[in-house]
């Protein structure tokens, strides 16, 4: 049997808004994934470390602090350094579309903004996993 897709849901920086991260974490769990939630106030280093240790397929970062243009690039840098090229990085939170596009151009798989249906995230990950295997 194929192992379940493992997802790390992470909160990075000083921001304490965890409503979205928790709703997403439980929706992904209900969607059939193995979900690890980092808890609050993580650094990019802590996220990369946890992702390696837990051997996850997907990292989902929730940011509502406005620090996304600093923290996402830092996470991508650490992923590259640790040769996590096969790991999908997703994001969500209060990220204006223009900056979301920039982040997607830099290698974030997708930024899911306010109003996203959680089923779209589940579908996105499933589709990504299916094309990765193929």
């Amino acid at each position, binding site marked *: 049997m194929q192992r379940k897709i493992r997802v790390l849901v992470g909160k990075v920086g000083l921001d304490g808004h965890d*409503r979205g991260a*928790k709703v997403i974490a439980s929706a992904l769990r209900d969607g059939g994934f193995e979900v690890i939630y980092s808890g609050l106030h993580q650094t990019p280093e802590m996220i990369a470390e946890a992702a390696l240790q837990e051997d996850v397929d997907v990292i989902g970062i929730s940011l509502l602090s406005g*620090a996304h243009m600093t923290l996402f690039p830092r996470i991508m840098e650490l992923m590259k350094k640790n040769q996590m090229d096969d790991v999908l990085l997703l994001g969500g939170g*209060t990220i*204006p579309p*223009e900056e979301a596009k920039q982040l997607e151009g830099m290698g974030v798989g997708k930024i899911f903004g306010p109003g996203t249906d*959680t089923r779209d995230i589940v579908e996105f990950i499933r589709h990504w996993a299916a094309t990765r295997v193929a």
Partner: protein
Amino acid sequence: MSTDHEKFKQERARWKKTTAVQFKDRPVKFMTTSSVPINDLYGPEDTQHIDFYRDIGFPGEFPYTRGIHANMHRGRLWTMRQFAGFGTAADTNQRFKYLLEHGQTGLSTAFDLPTLMGRDSDDPLSEGEVGVCGVAISSLRDMELLFDGIPLDKVSTSMTINSPAAILLAFYICVAEKQGVPASKLRGTIQNDILKEYIAQKEFIFPPEPSMKIVVDTIKYCAEQVPEWNTISISGYHIREAGSTAVQELAFTLADGFAYIEAAVAAGMQVDDFAPRLSFFFNSHLDFFEEVAKFRAARRIYARRMRDKYGAKDERSWKLRFHTQTAGCSLTGQQPFNNVVRTAYEALAGVLGGTQSLHTNSLDETWALPTEFAAKIALRTQQIIAHEIGVTNTVDPLAGSYFVEQLTTQMENAAEEYFQKIDALGGVIPAIKQGFFQREIAAAARQYQMEIEKKERIIVGVNAYAETEEKLEIPILKVDPIVEKAQNANLKKLRAERDITKVRQTLEQLKMAAQEDRNLMPALIDCSRAYCTLGEMINVLKGVYGTWREEPVF
């Protein structure tokens, strides 16, 4: 409200069978924003246990269901208090002056995340967050710039700050001192509500017990030295934003309030010496009647408990005063101009619920901090409610509505059930440690989202009436990264200029005060005068008290 209830019951049954049966309800769930089911009709039998004099009464009189003042907004409009802060202290100082010029009557300060977490702007963990979601304040020097040209004896200032609240209050007292304004003349509020940080907002630093000690220190200090200062703004706002229902917001917030009262009494204070300076801060969400009922229930529960359980004799201690902010979590990124409409209805509920002050959110806040234009429409929304639509002509106009009175009582009863649950867990702090509030809120947030996804709850522009290929066509406020560089340069300069011996001495005094369990306020004020930074003071206290991490639950 006396009517022949038996007769009403029979008549209602008849009406249902003969008249109502001809009309079919739409196939939707009739429920509040908090998923509370709502009947098709309310009548005298729903309010038969409500006694007018005991439960509703007159405004300005116990139990204050109808408002804490006899003439409410006929006498004085609520304070229009728009929360503002971004960038450097000088940037926010300009926004403050702009708002005062446009008729705002009180200031409300938003701090950036490093400040909220007690970190200096040049702390490595502050990188990327300096001045982004509020103003960066790392020392008295920044605070002097923030209030430059604003006489502190003329304005009231609210500061949304919790873990480091005592330190920001110390900064404020020192700025006043430099302006020649005595502490006894200062009017304002520090949020200082640490319990809801563990429950919902999660900007905690120390473990709950020492945090409560610091809160009690500020209450004691202000009772003696800053008597017009509101020492805690006990906040349901963040609990609701984190996903709670209206009843949970009501119950958890009041439970927090009672926990502060019990802590201050346990520290030897008389309830009437500090209770008049406690205030509350609630969310006003989309469900109009549920929100009005919540505000009315909050006043009634509080008055009863304060008089009957805590033995307060001063009428001021019985009155629940509150600030309201419209629900940020109700705003949509899609079709952002619709948010002006949502906010107006939410603000109206706050006004009809008898609020003392109000913040209306801006249409662009799901994406970033508001632009000046968006913030102005939000303020104008309040002014239209105040002056154009007639709702301030009479006090508590919704009283006596079968539905509103029934819902008010229903919420009061539901809150009482939560108080019993919290007591059974050993009180608020043990319940926090057991993750009780956190789980309740996460479950409610999840349910809300599921209702949206199943379309049991319609959000215009999101799961109905959505516009495909919608482009965001509003300007977005961007905080220039130069802010962080400028702020760090200022801080470097400050560290070089100040008298380092004094800094060391005052920090050492602070450490001793903490170790000897003395009131920290005098030592914090001395540190502030010596230009110790926020981070330096917090680090000394971390050394004594330790830090807090929560067990993540979802």
